[in-house]
């Protein structure tokens, strides 16, 4: 029997750091939770991530960054997504992000920020909530 379809999630890594262990662990956990996860690989521009999100018609976007450029690149991803008509797709972020930066990023529209030590179950549950809400609001 075919399991119920839970949704599609894009995991992208903007910026110049090459550390994608975290992104891959999250991608695997989301797949284990029943999502179809499209992984872009490292060093993608915000525009590349947005173009992939449109083609893959995803229900959420996860971005991971460890280089410290999150205050520039996370908003740039939001802007690129809005430019291709995906302004309402939930975006969740993770990486080495100082506590004091988190409120600002959330205010800009990043739905959740996961820092080192976050249990995987918390990550998958947050994606589940985000995808469910998005699909409901889009009438899917």
């Amino acid at each position, binding site marked *: 029997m075919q399991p*119920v*379809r839970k949704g599609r999630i894009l995991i992208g890594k903007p910026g110049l750091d090459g550390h994608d262990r975290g992104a891959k662990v999250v991608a695997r956990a989301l797949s284990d939770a*029943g999502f179809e996860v499209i992984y*872009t*690989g490292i060093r993608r521009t915000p525009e590349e991530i947005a*173009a992939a999100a449109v083609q893959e018609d995803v229900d959420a976007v996860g971005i991971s960054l460890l280089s410290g450029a999150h205050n520039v690149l996370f908003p740039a991803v939001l802007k690129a997504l809005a430019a291709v008509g995906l302004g309402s797709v939930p975006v969740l972020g993770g990486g080495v992000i100082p506590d004091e930066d988190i409120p600002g990023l959330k205010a800009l529209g990043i739905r959740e920020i996961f820092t080192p030590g976050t249990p995987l179950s918390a990550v998958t549950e947050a994606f589940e909530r985000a995808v469910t809400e998005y699909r409901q609001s889009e009438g899917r």
Partner: protein
Amino acid sequence: MSASSENSPRSLSGDDADGSFIRRIAEGVAARSPRAIGRAITIVEEGGPQADQLLTILDEAAPASDALTLGITGTGGAGKSTLAGRLVSCFRSAGHRVGLIAVDPSSPISGGAVLGDRIRMMRHACDPDVVIRSMASRGRLGGLSAATASAARIMKAAGCHPVLIETVGVGQAEFDIVRLADLTMLVMAPGLGDDIQAMKAGLLELTDMLVVNKGDLAGADILMREMEPIAHDRGKPLLKVSAKDGSGVDDLVREVFSLFRGMAESGRLEARRQRSSDAEALDWALEMAREELSQLLENQPDELKNCSPKKRAEAALFLLKTLKATM
């Protein structure tokens, strides 16, 4: 579709009942809107009446297509994705608008999947004339997903020629792609035991061209020598390429188009597409019959109650007869 309506987040959501949503999607596909193409493929993946409606509209708008559907199959690790990325580059430099469908397996346990083929395609990510879609096989065993044919149809309707379809890394019994595509290449690589696998698999007989990838590796020439008599006996082109450095890929593209032209001119293409569409119809019929039969079984007709395992053949015949009677 105007740019503003295309970019409004709600215009492409599926909350209306009168079918205008599906018509907007179909128009968007014809207008090559990336958002509409993405939504359209999701709709056919999810199946149901909306999918049928969409495919009907697209078929009516553009019933016959000259676009080539090119299958890329082979064992896992043979370099299918990397080669597909190279082929996309070649087709693009020749001025083609290209579609690429990459199928990866779904987990039978969770239903989830990690679709990683884009990693090798990202250099095309921002090219509006490269349409890429990753698909999970969703329980289907033939190396494709059930909606792959429909997704290819959508890409053709969106002006893609050719549409490349990269299968799940095949084992030994996954021939769906041969039926769906106009032309299929079998990708092999040295060091994977592919010569023996290919002989077992039957893909040698069924595919149209044999490609030895990783031509930059030492074992490639040995594999070529092993494959030469096999290719010769079957009258199939055999080419050596390196997807890594790109050597041989231009020749491969020329061979693809020359084969395709030959098929079109000799009428074999039409015959093949007819067979493929017949087989697709049979697939749909079997799928529908399976649902009907499962329902019949669930209702437990008296004749089947306490049926001994030995009488399975009788039970099966009874089910078929009952189904026939209800038609």
